[in-house]
């Protein structure tokens, strides 16, 4: 059992599913809240342990291990199969998913302690299903299973973003996330169907064999890879389908951590990593991926600079980092993108959970309510700074090596434009993240912050948590000590775990530079580090020393700033498209239905009525008339028949 990778991976995948079914079906368990949470955490811990063991085993075998079972039989072989595909890539991804999920679930126990038990049970049921679906995507040996789990991921993100469904913004954000990703999913589905038509199989390994033996006509492949990319575009929030991700911040912060680090947004990047052999045949689509990635990275970084909500800054930084990964994949080096996906998963989860701890203490998402928190929350401050340094790409921290790999890959792929965009985005990343750090942790303390329960409680807490929980919040405060101080063990534990992992990864990769498929130019490392340090310095001068006035900085970039405040009008564009195109089309169709389809029917029925009215008059009711008509008819008949006599 412990040495069979297939059984281990199956255990890892099915444990959260079992937990979900248990919590969902046994409703006293769900209503009880915390016991349901225990079941869920136990299941995901099991998954984590099995995933780590499976990774060790998978590393020792050169070939990918595949186990499939028939699902939809057909005349010649199974039409569709389900199963697992185990290789270092998928098991590594499994570890990331289960690790982040485990820590998020433990963290949520304290973060959501004010939730009523039934809501908590619901939360953990969704969490388990979410983990299961994401693992289903990760281990999928064929595109059909991948698509099903992919859609499940979408549903779970909808459920969790809209967890506080009584809050209208949360419900809207959940819908927006669902529809936006769904728009991409249509492309993915079309792509999968086209692949089946072209190659006759959904199986990833078989597809790879067919491609490698040049048994496939690659002329139609460009459309297919573009369709696949559309799906990844929606899930991984690439421009212009990135609009859902910032709004998804309406969900609970641990959910944001899960969505941004391990599940959901990583699925799109992972899909491209898994199908990189297909994309390698279509350089045009790859170039598109790279350029869109670069644009996404730069645009999101600019947007992050003007946000005032701490979670929105992090959300845009996720969009930006996803752009990095996509650019590396587009440059033809999926390995670099995948590496950045893994390191980003760790430190972004760390950042989100850290931000959650801050929000939990201050009861506000707005950075203007925060300041000087380092003294009140020293632990949170330290781990948040570790995460920030990782994201900024400072040596010895997690994001350093992977970001450099991405930059190098872009350069090696010959994409100068995206490379410059990424470099600018790296500068901005360091700047906006340290802006958060300096404002939140070192700036002057804000009145009411930290101990704002009495003053800000009604306003901020109602905005933060669902309004219906505001009443019972007061009773809970006696039990949990978080007013003004560091979070308890359940929240601090995951934070420190992630921080240490981020440090370990960073240290390891700084010392042993990952083996590249390409040559990094010697000047790249100093430039990347200098750019990051430059961003940090600018943030330091602006927000800590106030040597550079933030207002002057804002006015220096006036047009860009105004554009960024308007989110580059992408949301407006979508809204205008909705209003003009969709509603216009609906109006045309409505008019056609009302006046053409209904009109024809109405005219026919009116004619029938008029005709009936006219014919009615020959029914005089006089016997003589009837008999006359009878006789006349008889005569006509007789003359008519006369010829045949």
């Amino acid at each position, binding site marked *: 059992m412990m040495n069979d990778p297939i059984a281990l991976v199956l255990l890892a995948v099915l444990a959260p599913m079992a937990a979900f079914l248990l919590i969902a079906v046994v409703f006293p368990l769900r209503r009880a809240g915390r016991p349901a949470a225990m079941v869920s955490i136990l299941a995901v811990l099991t998954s984590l342990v099995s995933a780590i063991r499976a990774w060790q085993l998978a590393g020792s075998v050169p070939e990918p291990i595949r186990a499939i079972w028939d699902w939809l039989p057909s005349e010649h072989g199974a039409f569709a199969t389900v199963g697992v595909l185990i290789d270092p890539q998928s098991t590594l991804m499994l570890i990331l998913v289960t690790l982040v999920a485990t820590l998020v679930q433990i963290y949520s126990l304290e973060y959501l302690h004010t939730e009523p038990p039934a809501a908590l049970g619901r939360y953990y049921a969704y969490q388990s299903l979410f983990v299961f679906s994401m693992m289903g995507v990760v281990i999928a040996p064929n595109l059909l299973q991948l698509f099903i789990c992919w859609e499940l991921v979408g549903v779970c993100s909808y459920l969790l973003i809209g967890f506080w469904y009584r809050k209208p913004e949360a419900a809207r954000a959940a819908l927006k996330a669902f529809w936006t990703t769904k728009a991409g999913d249509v492309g993915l589905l079309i792509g999968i169907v086209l692949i089946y038509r072209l190659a006759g199989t959904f199986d990833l390994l078989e597809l790879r064999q067919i491609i490698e033996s040049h048994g496939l006509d690659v002329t139609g492949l460009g459309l297919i890879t573009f369709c696949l990319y559309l799906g990844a575009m929606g899930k991984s929030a690439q421009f212009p389908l990135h609009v859902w991700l910032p709004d998804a911040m309406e969900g609970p912060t641990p959910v944001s951590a899960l969505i941004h680090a391990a599940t959901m947004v990583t699925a799109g990047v992972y899909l491209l990593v898994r199908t990189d052999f297909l994309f390698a045949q279509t350089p045009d689509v790859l170039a598109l991926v790279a350029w869109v990635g670069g644009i996404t990275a730069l645009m999101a970084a600019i947007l992050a600079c003007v946000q005032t909500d701490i979670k929105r800054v992090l959300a845009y930084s996720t969009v930006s980092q996803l752009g990095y990964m996509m650019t590396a994949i587009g440059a033809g080096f999926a390995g670099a993108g995948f590496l950045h996906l893994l390191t980003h998963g760790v430190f972004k989860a760390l950042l989100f959970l850290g931000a959650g701890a801050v929000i939990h203490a201050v009861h506000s998402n707005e950075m203007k309510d925060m300041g000087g928190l380092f003294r009140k929350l020293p632990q949170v401050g330290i781990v948040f700074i570790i995460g920030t340094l990782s994201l900024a790409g400072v040596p010895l921290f997690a994001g350093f090596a992977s970001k450099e790999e991405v930059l190098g890959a872009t350069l090696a792929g010959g994409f100068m434009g995206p490379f410059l965009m990424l470099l600018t985005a790296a500068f901005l990343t360091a700047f906006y993240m340290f802006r958060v750090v300096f404002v939140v942790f070192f700036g002057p303390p804000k009145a009411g912050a930290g101990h704002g329960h009495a003053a800000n409680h009604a306003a901020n807490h109602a905005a933060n948590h669902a309004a219906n929980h505001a009443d019972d919040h007061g009773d809970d405060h006696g039990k949990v000590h978080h007013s003004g101080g560091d979070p308890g063990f359940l929240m601090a534990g995951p934070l420190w775990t992630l921080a240490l992992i981020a440090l370990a990864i960073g240290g390891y990769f700084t010392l042993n530079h990952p083996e590249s498929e390409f040559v990094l130019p010697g000047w790249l490392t100093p430039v990347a580090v200098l750019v990051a340090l430059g961003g940090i310095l600018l943030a330091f001068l602006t927000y800590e020393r106030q040597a550079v006035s933030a207002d002057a900085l804002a006015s220096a970039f006036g047009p860009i700033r105004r554009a960024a405040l308007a989110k580059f009008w992408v949301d407006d564009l979508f809204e205008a498209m909705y209003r003009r195109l969709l509603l216009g089309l609906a109006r045309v169709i409505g008019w056609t239905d009302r006046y053409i389809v209904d009109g024809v029917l109405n005219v026919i029925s009116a004619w029938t009525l008029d005709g009936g009215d006219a014919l009615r*008059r020959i029914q005089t*009711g006089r016997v*003589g008339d009837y008999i006359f008509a009878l*006789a006349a008819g008889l005569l006509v008949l007789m003359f008519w028949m006369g010829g045949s006599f």
Partner: protein
Amino acid sequence: MPLSAYLTLAAILFSIGLFGVITRRNTVGILLGVELMLNAVNINLVAFSRFHDTEVGMVFTLFAICITVAEVALGLALVILIFRSRKTAIADHVDWLKG
């Protein structure tokens, strides 16, 4: 006399009867017209019976006369009933079926 003479007589009689049925407004007059038409048919039957040398036509005529008697009885009964309820014997006044 040839057969055509009998048939012509029957046709004339039938037409007179039909004319009466169509033009008479009195219900009893209509019934009389119907009687004329029936008898025209009877003349036809008898004439054919005679010229084809069979008795079938005569037997048929006897039946027709019997049924006519019953029909007239029924028709008159209806006329009386209508007269009782509508206080009229004019067919045009009985126009419940008018559309």
